[in-house]
């Protein structure tokens, strides 16, 4: 009971530290600017729409965040999403729930493979996930022979399109999981070890942290979350394609860095990433609705990533 009280007492402090306050101001600022260019931005239907997309990208970003906190990179999240989706999708004949379970299990396994090769095989995470980005992506195309799987009228779609009391399911899942991750990272010893591993690997090793296991855990969570985001995205588009996850690594990086996660690991909070995801979602929403055009969206996503990192690296951290 006293423990809980302490946690509750320290909550405001945690919320206010770690750039979260700055991010909140940025969010309000962006919303105000958005209001000028897009008058109907605060309509409930638009807000829910944005939050739906935010939840899907944000879930991948939370997984990426955990990997970044341990000081590694995971570029393969997009391909993990595609491959787990198509493998799960080929079990749709057995019903929606087995297909979902297999999707999640595949994502977890792919993440574990990344983690084991990086820690036990001593391959750098950058090159390993670059390789698996290409391997998993290729496998995904082979599984469906490059075709899409259409999902009309399946309970599977509910994950992406359903809602409870007007709140979309993806939003509930995203906030549920990020809350769990927040408490896991802040208040459990394993969570703290993730921070220690990223902050100073050698020191963590000397203090008895099993770095290898921590990193494998981080990569498997990243894989699992990418796989969980997949069916929600497929529910939105009503189909599973082998290129569904292409480009998700870019958004995940952008959101994580926007949320104040340190480039070299060990610093940052999940709350920041949640706000980062909302900022990212509204930014793209404003750009789309103000008629900038669809071709340029990819350009903006790429440039946004670079600009965000430049700002955080050179201005805010000083």
């Amino acid at each position, binding site marked *: 009971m006293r423990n809980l009280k302490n946690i509750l007492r320290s909550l405001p402090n945690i919320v206010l530290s770690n750039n979260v306050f700055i991010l909140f101001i940025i969010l309000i600022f962006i919303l105000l600017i958005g209001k000028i260019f897009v008058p109907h931005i605060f309509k409930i239907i638009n807000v829910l729409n944005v939050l739906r997309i935010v939840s899907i990208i944000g879930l991948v970003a939370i997984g990426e965040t955990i990997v970044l906190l341990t000081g590694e990179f995971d570029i393969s999240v997009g391909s993990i999403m595609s491959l787990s989706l198509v493998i799960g999708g080929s079990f749709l004949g057995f019903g929606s729930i087995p297909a979902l379970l297999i999707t999640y299990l595949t994502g977890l396994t792919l993440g574990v493979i990344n983690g084991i090769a990086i820690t036990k095989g001593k391959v*750098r995470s950058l*090159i390993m996930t670059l390789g698996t*980005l290409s391997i998993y992506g*290729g496998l995904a195309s*082979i599984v469906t022979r490059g075709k899409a799987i259409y999902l009309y009228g399946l309970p599977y779609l509910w994950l992406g399109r359903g809602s409870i009391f007007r709140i979309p399911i993806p939003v509930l899942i995203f906030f549920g999981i990020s809350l769990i991750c927040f408490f896991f990272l802040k208040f459990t010893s394993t969570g703290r070890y993730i921070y220690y591993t990223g902050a100073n690997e050698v020191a963590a090793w000397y203090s008895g942290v099993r770095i290898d296991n921590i990193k494998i855990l981080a990569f498997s969570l990243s894989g699992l979350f990418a796989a969980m985001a997949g069916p929600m995205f497929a529910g939105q588009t009503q189909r599973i394609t082998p290129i569904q996850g292409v480009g998700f690594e870019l958004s995940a990086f952008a959101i994580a860095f926007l949320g104040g996660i340190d480039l070299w690991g060990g610093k940052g909070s999940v709350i920041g990433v949640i706000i980062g995801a909302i900022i990212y979602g509204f930014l793209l929403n404003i750009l789309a609705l103000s008629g900038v055009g669809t*071709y340029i969206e990819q350009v903006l996503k790429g440039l946004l*990533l*670079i600009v965000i990192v430049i700002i955080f*690296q050179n201005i805010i951290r000083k």
Partner: protein
Amino acid sequence: MNLDSKNSISQLLSSVREITKENKFLDLIKKNIIVLILIFLLVLGTLTSGTFLSLYNLQNIAINVSIFGILAIGQTLVLLTKQIDLSVGANMAFSLIAAIKITQILMSQFGVNIIQEANYVNSGMLTIIVFTIVVSNLIGLLNGIITVKAKVPPLITTLGMLYALRGFAYVLSKGHPLYFTYLQGFNWLGTKILFNVPVCFLFYLVIGIVGILILKYTKIGTKIYATGGNEKAAIYSGINSDLWRIIVYGVSGFCAGFATLIYSSRLESVEVAQATGYEFISVAIVVIGGTTLEGGRGRLFGTFLAAIILGVVINIITLMGLIVWYQNIIIGIIIISAVFAYIKGIRVKKRT
């Protein structure tokens, strides 16, 4: 098993280890493992396909190798300074499309329209070539400046650039391909064959040899190796490591520009999705060639041979009738296993 026999086994093992350590022959094999792999692949190709050794197929491989190889030479320099360039493939699409658009705007000032029938380019070859090289070089330098001066990790800079450049290419071309069928002489670089050797392969040889000589025998080479090997030591010995990092990115951009000229000259067209995934191929080649990601270690000669290896591998895959999906998987496996092999001890000795 008693203690004596255990001891004797361990003695035996250690003596075996010493023999292999001193054995010049094994050392020679370890150093030249790339050459052995290449010979093995050539034998494999000959055995699996009747057409592998035909002159036409070999020329085909040579043209592909020169595109991959020129990209990989730039990538090698980047990796030697402990960076990575994932934007080369996108740069290949963007620089040529941008060059055509710039030429179109310039020429229209003089009342000349270089594009007929909506997407056939018919004149202005020299300007296009010059601007392709200039634009690709500038993109490379921009990568370098963002990475070095704004302290953005190279992975983030070039990943962001990958998407941004492909997007820009979409914006400029509106997604339509452009054809060079009516552009006289543009296909010279990619299709001309001199004494049974494709011209572009000769260019690859020249660029490769010049690169090897510069890295090995000039101060520039030493500076690049020092920047990647030990940055602090390099700075204390008066090497402007920031400058060299930017220059190396510029060279990588230049290589992308040259490679896209060969690519488009061969296909007589350019499109937005051009050279998708070539960044993987270039990194794979460099890693097979023995350059490590830790910087400061590796030989350009290794890259030179590794490009031929990858060209042959892709050709064998194609001849076996496996499509591009399998190709992606195999290249991914090659990247990881090559890194794994070098970690496990088949290292190229550090240049002293």
